[in-house]
């Protein structure tokens, strides 16, 4: 263990806690939307505890809200496909963390913990940044999910309160920081058009999976790439102030 400057470590702690507090606020919107989609309070809380990756959680309840339980396979596939980037983060964090607590580290591997960790100098500050952010987001996200689920239960007709529009805005907020570069914008536009165009023909939830093909095609053939494009997976918040956008 190399001796990092204490200032670097305490900066990592401060950043991690700040990101945890900022992220906790979206837990309320997730809790309310999940209950609006027909889940009960317990099911909503289990999602935040066990799945613990915001994009996948929003996707699961979004597909469920439009297609009900009949769209379960598409709901699971959407959540898993969105969660696949966490595998890339895990691969990136493994040599940095050097921990025996693999399951705990994997559990806490999300956009925020990876972004805060990689924003610190290598060594102890990086490890502290990862664990503090992961734990702070975990505690905040789960507490506010419960609050949101309880509030959602009181609302009743969620459409009258515009919760369906809130869900669309939440997806746009997760997407926004990733729309950098021609390639990302082209994939975003293509996927949105394809999903809308196939909606009348396919079961609810399936258009989202079909739209993933746009990413595979563009990614494999590397269309619209920038000459000096950074091709390595980078968490979106890594160069911006961490936690300024997106959910875990």
């Amino acid at each position: 263990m190399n001796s990092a400057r204490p200032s670097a470590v305490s900066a990592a702690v401060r950043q991690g806690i700040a990101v945890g507090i900022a992220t906790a606020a979206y837990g309320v919107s997730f809790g309310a939307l999940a209950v609006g989609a027909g889940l009960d309070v317990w099911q909503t809380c289990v999602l935040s505890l066990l799945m613990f990756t915001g994009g996948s959680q929003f996707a699961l309840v979004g597909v469920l809200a439009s297609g009900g339980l009949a769209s379960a396979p598409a709901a699971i596939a959407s959540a898993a496909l969105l969660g696949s980037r966490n595998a890339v983060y895990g691969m990136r964090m493994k040599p940095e963390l050097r921990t025996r607590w693999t399951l705990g580290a994997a559990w806490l591997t999300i956009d925020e913990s990876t972004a805060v960790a990689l924003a610190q100098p290598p060594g102890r500050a990086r490890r502290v940044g990862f664990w503090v952010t992961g734990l702070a987001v975990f505690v905040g996200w789960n507490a506010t999910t419960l609050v949101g689920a309880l509030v959602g239960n009181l609302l009743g007709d969620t459409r009258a309160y515009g919760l369906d529009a809130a869900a669309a805005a939440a997806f746009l907020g997760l997407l926004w920081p990733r729309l950098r570069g021609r390639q990302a914008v082209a994939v975003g536009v293509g996927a949105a058009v394809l999903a809308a165009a196939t909606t009348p023909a396919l079961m609810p939830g399936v258009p989202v999976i079909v739209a993933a093909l746009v990413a595979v095609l563009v990614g494999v053939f590397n269309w619209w790439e920038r000459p000096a494009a950074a091709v390595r997976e980078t968490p979106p918040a890594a160069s911006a102030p961490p936690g300024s956008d997106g959910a875990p």
Partner: protein
Amino acid sequence: MTSWQLILAASIACLALKVFGYAIPAHWLERPTTGRVANLLTVALLAALVAVQTLGSGQHLVVDARVPAILVSASLYALRVPFIVVVIAAAVVAALLRLWFGLA
């Protein structure tokens, strides 16, 4: 499939993907194509979810109060307004359009 089975299956799948990242040799995902597809996959899925959540109603496409709400939220994100404020603003816009103008 019950709601509980759905929740557990999806949660375990997502958790397994996280563990998978720590279990595989590092060089697997370092190929540029794999990293690029993983990045773009997130973009494509989120963009598709925005489209379906804004225009979809079961298997129909409809233009209702969600469309002005998402346009407002896009402008607010462009102005760097924080996530939670934008999400609430979108809900308020849709709710008020429905209340005042009887929009679907």
